[in-house]
């Protein structure tokens, strides 16, 4: 499913979200860590994209 999201939307528009505390954080993280995407795409999904968004918003 993560692979499909990255393929359809592009890795720049997919952002990790855990749904904690409703979902156990390791279970949510495991989906991205196990997904067959490139290391660069994984970095984008797990934090890079969110950091970019926040930087644009706050000018950080």
């Amino acid at each position, binding site marked *: 499913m*993560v*692979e499909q999201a990255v393929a359809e939307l592009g890795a720049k528009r997919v952002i990790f979200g855990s*749904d*904690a*505390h*409703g*979902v*156990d*954080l*390791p*279970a*949510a*993280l*495991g*989906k991205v*860590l*196990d*997904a*067959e995407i490139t290391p660069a795409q994984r970095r984008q999904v797990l934090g890079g994209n969110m950091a970019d968004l926040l930087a644009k918003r706050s000018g950080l």
Partner: protein
Amino acid sequence: MTWDACTLVGPWPFARLRYESAADLLRLLERAGIARALVSPLAGAFQQDPGPANQELAAQVACHRDRLLLAAACNPAWPGWQRDLRQAQDDLGAVGLRLFPSYHGYQLGQAEVAALAALAADCDLPVFITLRLQDERLHPPAFLVSAVPWEEVAALAQAHPGTRFVMSMGRFAELIPALRQTAGTGNLYADIAGVQGPTRCLDRLVAEVGADRLLFGTELLFQYAAAATLKVEHSGLSPRDRQALCMGNLQRLLRPA
């Protein structure tokens, strides 16, 4: 060492899965560090007569019996299921049975299920009851399937104390009452394949119902293995409870004293 109590192989009718074969499963188990797995045919949920799906999967796993153990799909609402059950054990090497009650359209209170429970006890085969295959919110609009109520599973286990049952793909809120209600008979187990939360769900499950009737499960090839393995790695379970959950309980279930 880890044994997986819940894996399924084969095509999913509503979407192309990334992986579908027993060879794929073996590779993903290897990558996840899982030594053995109980595997059932996904097609067995969709075909009224799951016999051919069992045969096809048995042929795929025949060369890998040290890694893959067959839990044959069984439909007690289909004529001839008793013969199929015997054949699955005798000819295909099945070590367990997997039921898909919602997909085959029967309730666990029906007479056929009582007969299956009795025969499974005679054959010394544990019965895995699939509560759901996927989150109800994700079903295709034309194919909405309700989850099996945990109350039916608990009642079935209580009515057949000589049969070993596993509630498969239940959620946190379903496992706790079901395992509590059957504490007296002790013959109901549950896999954790469907337990995604809440935070620290495994620690909370063990605190509520103990570790001795919980089984590690991934729901490969449907889900990501790491979603299950990381739950265990990051839990605060004691070494004893971790061993029981990851292997000891399933080993005991498959090879009772």
